[in-house]
C-alpha cells in the first residue's frame, strides 16, 4: 500500500488546499483504479481528524437494526421483486421533518450548531483532531469546541471552548489571528503557538508553552489585556480575579492527554471537582479535615474508579456510596452506623 503521493498532500487536496501542481498530480494518480484503496483509507483518516460533526451512532445503529428486522418480517415474495431501492425520502427541503431528534444537544450548543461545527467529548474521553487551517487540537473529557462552519479561514480564526483543550496553532502566511473564546468576558488571542486552556465553572486557566499570546478579559466591567510569556500560567477565578505565575514547563497542564493526573499539593476538594469535570462522578469529602488533605505526584487513571483507588490508597481512606454520591471517610470512623 505504498503511494507516490504523500498522505499529507492527499489531506491538503481533500481540504481543497492543494496547490495546482499537487492537485494535478493527485488527480492523475487517482485515475489509476488500483490507487482507490489507498485513497479511501486516507479519506477515512482525514474524516477522523477533521470531523464535520458527530452523529449519534447508537441511535443510527438501532435504526439500521429496525430496518433489517422490518425487511425480514415483510413478505419474502416481495423481496424478490426489484423493490424500490431506497427508503429515503428525496426531499431537498423537508418542511415536515422530525426536527425534535436533532434537538438533543444542550442549549448552549444548540444555538451554535447552525453556523458552527461542534466537537464534543463525553466523560472519560479525549479526542484529537485538526482544524481546517492545519492547527491541532486535543480536547479533554467533558469538553466542547465550536468552530465556525464558514469564515473560519477569514482574517480572524475564532473558536469557542467549554472545558479543557490543548492547541497547537499553525501560523498562517497572512498572519491570521487565532482567538479562543471561553466566555463573553475572556478570550485568548494568538498567531502561532502552543498553549492549553481550561474553562470550567470553577475558573479559567491558560498555560503557554511556546510563542506569545494575549488575554482579553473583563474585570469590574472594564476591559483589560494581558500579554503572556512562555512558561507562564494564568488563572482567573469565578470572581474575575486574575493571577499570573511562572511555572516553567507546561507539560503538567496536558497530563490529561495521557490520562495522567498531575497533582501538586492538590487538595481533596479540588480532586473532587476534577472527578466531576472528567468523569461526571459526584465525590465528596466526609469532613473538612479530609477536604483539606493534599496529594502531590503523577497518577495514571483512565476511569473514575482508577482515580478513586489512587485517592483511597494514598490517603488511606475508605469510600461509602450514598444515593448516587461517593463519600470519602477515614478508615476508623464509620459515619453512618446502622
Amino acid at each position, binding site marked *: *500500500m505504498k503511494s507516490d503521493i504523500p498522505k499529507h498532500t492527499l489531506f491538503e*487536496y*481533500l481540504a*481543497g488546499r492543494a496547490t495546482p501542481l499537487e492537485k494535478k498530480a493527485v488527480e492523475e494518480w*487517482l*485515475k489509476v483504479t488500483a490507487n*482507490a*484503496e489507498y485513497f*479511501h*483509507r486516507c*479519506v477515512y*483518516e482525514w*474524516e*477522523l*481528524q477533521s*470531523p*464535520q*460533526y*458527530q*452523529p449519534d*451512532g*447508537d441511535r*443510527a*445503529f438501532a*435504526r*439500521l437494526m429496525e*430496518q*433489517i428486522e422490518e425487511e425480514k418480517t415483510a413478505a419474502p415474495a416481495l423481496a424478490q421483486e426489484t423493490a424500490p431501492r*431506497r427508503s*429515503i425520502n*428525496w426531499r*431537498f*427541503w*423537508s*418542511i*415536515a*421533518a*422530525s*426536527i425534535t431528534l*436533532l434537538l438533543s444537544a444542550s442549549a448552549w450548543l444548540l444555538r451554535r*450548531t*447552525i*453556523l458552527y461545527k461542534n466537537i464534543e*467529548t*463525553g466523560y*472519560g*474521553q*479525549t*479526542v484529537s483532531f485538526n482544524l481546517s487551517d492545519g492547527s491541532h487540537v486535543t480536547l479533554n473529557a467533558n469538553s466542547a469546541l465550536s468552530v465556525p462552519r*464558514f*469564515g473560519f479561514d477569514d482574517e480572524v480564526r475564532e473558536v469557542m471552548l467549554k472545558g479543557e483543550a490543548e492547541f497547537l496553532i499553525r501560523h498562517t502566511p497572512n498572519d491570521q489571528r487565532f482567538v479562543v473564546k471561553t466566555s463573553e468576558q475572556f478570550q485568548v488571542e494568538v498567531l502561532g503557538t502552543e498553549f492549553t486552556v481550561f474553562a470550567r465553572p470553577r475558573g479559567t486557566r491558560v498555560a503557554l508553552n511556546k510563542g506569545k499570546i494575549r488575554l482579553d478579559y473583563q474585570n469590574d466591567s472594564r476591559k483589560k489585556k494581558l500579554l503572556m510569556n512562555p512558561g507562564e500560567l494564568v488563572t482567573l477565578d469565578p470572581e474575575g480575579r486574575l493571577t499570573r505565575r511562572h511555572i516553567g514547563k507546561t507539560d503538567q497542564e496536558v497530563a490529561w492527554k495521557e490520562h495522567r493526573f498531575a497533582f501538586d499539593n492538590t487538595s481533596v476538594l479540588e480532586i473532587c471537582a476534577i472527578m466531576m469535570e472528567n*468523569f461526571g*462522578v459526584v465525590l465528596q469529602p466526609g469532613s473538612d479535615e479530609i477536604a483539606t488533605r493534599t496529594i502531590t505526584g503523577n497518577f495514571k487513571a483512565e*476511569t*473514575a*474508579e482508577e482515580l*478513586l483507588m489512587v485517592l483511597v490508597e494514598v490517603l488511606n481512606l475508605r469510600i461509602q*456510596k450514598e444515593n*448516587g454520591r*461517593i463519600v470519602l471517610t477515614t478508615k476508623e470512623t464509620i459515619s453512618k452506623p446502622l
Partner: protein
Amino acid sequence: MIDPKPKTIFQKERAPVPGSEGSSRQLDDELLLRQTFAEDARTGLELLFRRYHAPLCSHAVRFVYSKQIAEDLVGEVFFQFYKSEAYSKISTSYLSYLFRSVRNEAYTYLRRELARTSPLSADSENQQATQAVSPDAEIHYNQLYLKVNEAIAQLPAQCQRVFLLSRFEDKKYQEIADELHISPKTVEAHISKALRHLRQALQHDWMTH
C-alpha cells in the same frame, strides 16, 4: 454507581493516532472484520458500523449539507451492504467499498436534486447504476463537495444562515422565521436564492456518459 467505561467505543475509534496506522494493522482490521462476517454477519455488521459510521457521515455531509440526509445515505449503504451480502462478494476492502458507495450515493442525491431542471440530465439519471466504474468518478466527487462548500460560503450572510438552518438543521420555515425575526416569505425567498446559486455553481458538474 460509577460506570467505569462510559460509552467510549466511538471515541476510542475516533481518536486518531497519527503514524500508528501501519498497513499491517489495516490488513488485520480488515481480516478480523471479514472473519467476523463469515461467522456471524450481524456481529460483523455491528463492528463495521461502529468503526466507520461516524467518518462516513462526516464525509457525506460535506456533499449534502444535511445531517439527516447524510445519515440516511450512510444508513442505506450499510443496509444494502448487509442485505445484498456484499461482505462475502466484494474483492476490495470493506472500507474502500463503503466510502466509494457513500460518495456515489451523495453524488447521485445531489444530482437528482440540483440538476433536475434540465431534461437532459434527468435522462442520464437512468444510467447512474453504471457510473461507478468511471475512472474519473473519484475526482468528480472531490470537486463536487469542494464546490458545494465554496458555493455556500459565497452566499450572503443572512441567506447562508437561512439555508443552513433549513438544510443542515432540518428546521421548518416557520421556525426559521421566528428565530431570525423575518417573515416566512423572506425565508422562502432566501432558500430559493440559495438553491438557484447552488444549481448554477454546480451546473457543469454532472458527469455525462
